């Protein structure tokens, strides 16, 4: 009984994870420039990986296997933004301007005078 419920939960989590991972792959192909593709890549690294690992952890139960899975997840969550920042900063320093879909340079909005109050 409990095994059936756990299997169903795992199925749900893994299917949701598959959806986000595949969406990330499609986004990587569809989005127009390297900056916007980073958002798709970030999607597979956060919720895609998280749901996959949660689905496997449900099957693992309270064992060392689950602990290792969680360590992998925490590691991905800590390194993914660092790698993305390094890439984005390299692209920016390399002089690549972000583009809109029609190819024009996108505008810069200056909010450094303080957060919005509204």
């Amino acid at each position, binding site marked *: 009984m409990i095994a059936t419920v756990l*299997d169903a939960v795992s199925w749900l989590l893994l299917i949701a994870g598959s959806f986000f991972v595949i969406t990330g792959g499609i986004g990587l192909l569809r989005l127009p420039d390297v900056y916007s593709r980073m958002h798709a890549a970030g999607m597979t690294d956060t919720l895609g990986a998280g749901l996959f690992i949660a689905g496997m952890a449900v099957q693992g139960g309270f064992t060392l296997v689950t602990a290792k899975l969680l360590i992998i997840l925490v590691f991905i969550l800590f390194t993914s933004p660092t790698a993305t920042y390094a890439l984005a900063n390299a692209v920016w320093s390399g002089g690549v301007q972000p583009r809109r879909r029609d190819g024009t340079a996108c505008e810069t909005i200056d909010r450094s005078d303080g957060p919005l109050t509204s």
Partner: protein
Amino acid sequence: MMFAAAAAALLITMLLVLLRAFMGPTLYDRILAVNTFGTKTVLMIAVLGFLMGRPEFLDIALVYALINFIGTIAVLKFFRYGDLGRAGKGEP
């Protein structure tokens, strides 16, 4: 069964990501694609561990996650500075 489905979804994604790595068009697109491919590989190794009933695979997945991160940073640093031994900004 569920892990076979998950592995199939990961394989489809890896194919899409690989397409982006081949298409480019810039170097940065390729690095981004390879980094994403690496994360998918980590998940793939973990899923395969469950599929084959070999939990030792998780250790390999953990090590692969480490290598993937360091590899991405190393490639970026190399293309930015031209060598890997240079100190970052703010240091002499």
